[in-house]
């Protein structure tokens, strides 16, 4: 199906009605009306549709209790709903089964889990972990902690001036010393979608498992962990129109099975004595303590929501926005877009000549436009492009071309203000 046909079917105004917050204005004061919110910061966290909010409210009002413990009615009801979402997440990623799905508190925790449990068990001094230059700090710092403890070596795959991952350099970095590859599936700064399948294939030729940070990728396209042949894949609920406080780790079961617990506590043990404790099989082994139960229910509703809209239809809509925004922004004099890789996600980072991003952010905010400014938790990448901090507009399934126009207009105001 062509983009045009998909877009005709995609009624963004109806979609927007599902998101109560999008109807609000900002900076209203002293009887003066505010500016309509133009939310272009979904890359940091997406807004929530009524369907998610209501599913969580309904669960709390009608079915809430702790899970996996009680013999009572509600405990069973809540457990059933919680576990049904695990199965739903498995289908969402096309994981072979739901035992490969571990709920964590965030993508960050999911990566820390792998670094801590897999890394501390199977990596030793001199072993190498390959990351890329475009990693979020969440996929850098856990490995640095492991580096400090186990004296592993971190290797970094560079990217070219467009933000395309340098696959030749990656191939060269892979060696007998490589023990793990951990790379983003979609850069939160550049929007670059990395060739996950090729990355995994090359790693597997060296017998090396691969972790993908899919925090941005699952939002903007369909992910099939079996097709990619990912060994670990992580994402977070709150960027996928779901609640905060919940992440997902997918792991191949053979790997999860041989990994020790990450944290100790309730719900992850078979038996506890002071002489010793035996642990449950994954995924329970990695889910110590009471999980974010209501949030898991919310994630289930978020997945239902994006699947009902159609992930291809969403991707087509976002692609249209990206192209339109890129075109409009390119006409702003002195504006430089950072990251122009083919097939990128709907994320546009840019620098405006003569004006610091922080000042841009403050001024466009007065026009109701919410963007992210700074280094986007990816400091090494900012250095790579020699731009320091940037402004980032990230588009979601509810954004419109008019909002891209509003961004461009507010940038013109910035330029007037600074005489830039």
């Amino acid at each position: 199906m062509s983009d045009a046909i998909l877009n005709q079917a995609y009624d963004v105004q109806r979609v927007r009605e599902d998101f109560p917050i999008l109807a609000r204005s900002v900076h209203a004061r002293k009887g003066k009306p505010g500016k309509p919110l133009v939310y272009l910061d979904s890359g940091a966290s997406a807004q929530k549709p009524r369907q998610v909010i209501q599913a969580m409210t309904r669960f709390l009002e009608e079915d809430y209790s702790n899970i996996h413990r009680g013999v009572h009615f509600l405990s069973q009801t809540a457990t059933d709903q919680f576990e049904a979402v695990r199965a739903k997440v498995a289908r969402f990623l096309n994981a072979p089964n739901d035992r490969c799905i571990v709920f964590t508190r965030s993508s960050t925790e999911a990566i820390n889990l792998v670094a801590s449990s897999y890394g501390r068990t199977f990596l030793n001094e001199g072993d190498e972990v390959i990351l890329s230059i475009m990693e979020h700090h969440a996929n850098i710092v856990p490995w640095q902690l492991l580096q400090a403890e186990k004296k592993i070596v971190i290797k970094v795959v560079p990217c070219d001036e467009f933000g395309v991952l340098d696959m030749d350099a990656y191939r060269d970095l892979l060696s007998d010393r490589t023990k793990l590859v951990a790379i983003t599936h979609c850069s939160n700064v550049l929007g670059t979608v990395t060739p996950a399948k090729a990355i995994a294939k090359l790693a597997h030729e060296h017998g090396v498992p691969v972790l993908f940070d899919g925090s941005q990728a699952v939002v903007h396209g369909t992910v099939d962990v079996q097709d990619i042949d990912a060994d670990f894949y992580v994402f977070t609920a709150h960027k996928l129109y779901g609640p905060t406080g919940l992440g997902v780790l997918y792991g191949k079961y053979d790997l999860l099975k041989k990994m020790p617990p990450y944290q100790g506590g309730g719900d992850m043990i078979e038996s506890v004595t002071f002489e010793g404790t035996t642990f449950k099989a994954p995924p329970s082994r990695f889910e110590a303590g009471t999980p974010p139960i209501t949030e898991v229910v919310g994630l289930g509703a978020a997945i239902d929501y994006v699947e009902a809209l159609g992930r291809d239809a969403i991707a087509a809509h976002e692609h249209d926005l990206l192209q339109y925004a890129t075109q409009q922004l390119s006409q702003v004099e002195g504006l430089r877009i950072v990251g122009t890789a083919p097939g990128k996600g709907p994320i546009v980072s840019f620098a405006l000549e003569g004006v610091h991003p922080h000042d841009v952010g403050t001024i466009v905010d007065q026009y109701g436009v919410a963007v992210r400014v700074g280094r986007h938790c990816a400091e090494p990448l900012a250095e790579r492009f020699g731009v320091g901090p940037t402004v980032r507009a990230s588009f979601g399934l509810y954004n419109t071309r008019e909002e891209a126009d509003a961004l461009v207009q507010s940038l013109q105001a910035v330029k007037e203000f600074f005489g830039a």
Partner: protein
Amino acid sequence: MMDDLRELYQEVILDHGKHPRNFRHPDDANREAKGENPMCGDRFMVYLTLKDGVVDDVAFQGRGCAISTASASMMTELVHGKTAAEAETLFHAFHELCTQDEPDIPEGIDDETMEKLMVMSGVRQFPVRVKCATLAWHAMNAALHGEASASSDQF
């Protein structure tokens, strides 16, 4: 709302932001401290030449937004020629002005200096920008106390 913006970015701030004064590294500086805002990447070095307890020279270098650059530039003009104790008093006064609706200003600051300090106080309406305005001041204060750095995490 645009009034707030104009108050934040007055002519004098835009001017100092574009053409910062004392943007250099003095050869005879005997104190220096780094000011860093890890959130946005703003980074300044503030250099002091203290002679007999007086700020004989003060300068800065680095990269930041219009607010932080202008504030650093104006700080150098205000602190120059002051005793270390007076410079610290100015730091506390400035910090109060940027963060408190009813600032508690230390005694002994002349009207002209107060007026210059007040220029940046519009930043109070923009809480996330307070750290920009106070960054170089914190670094200056750290340098006065012989500390190597000030991070906005600790402000």
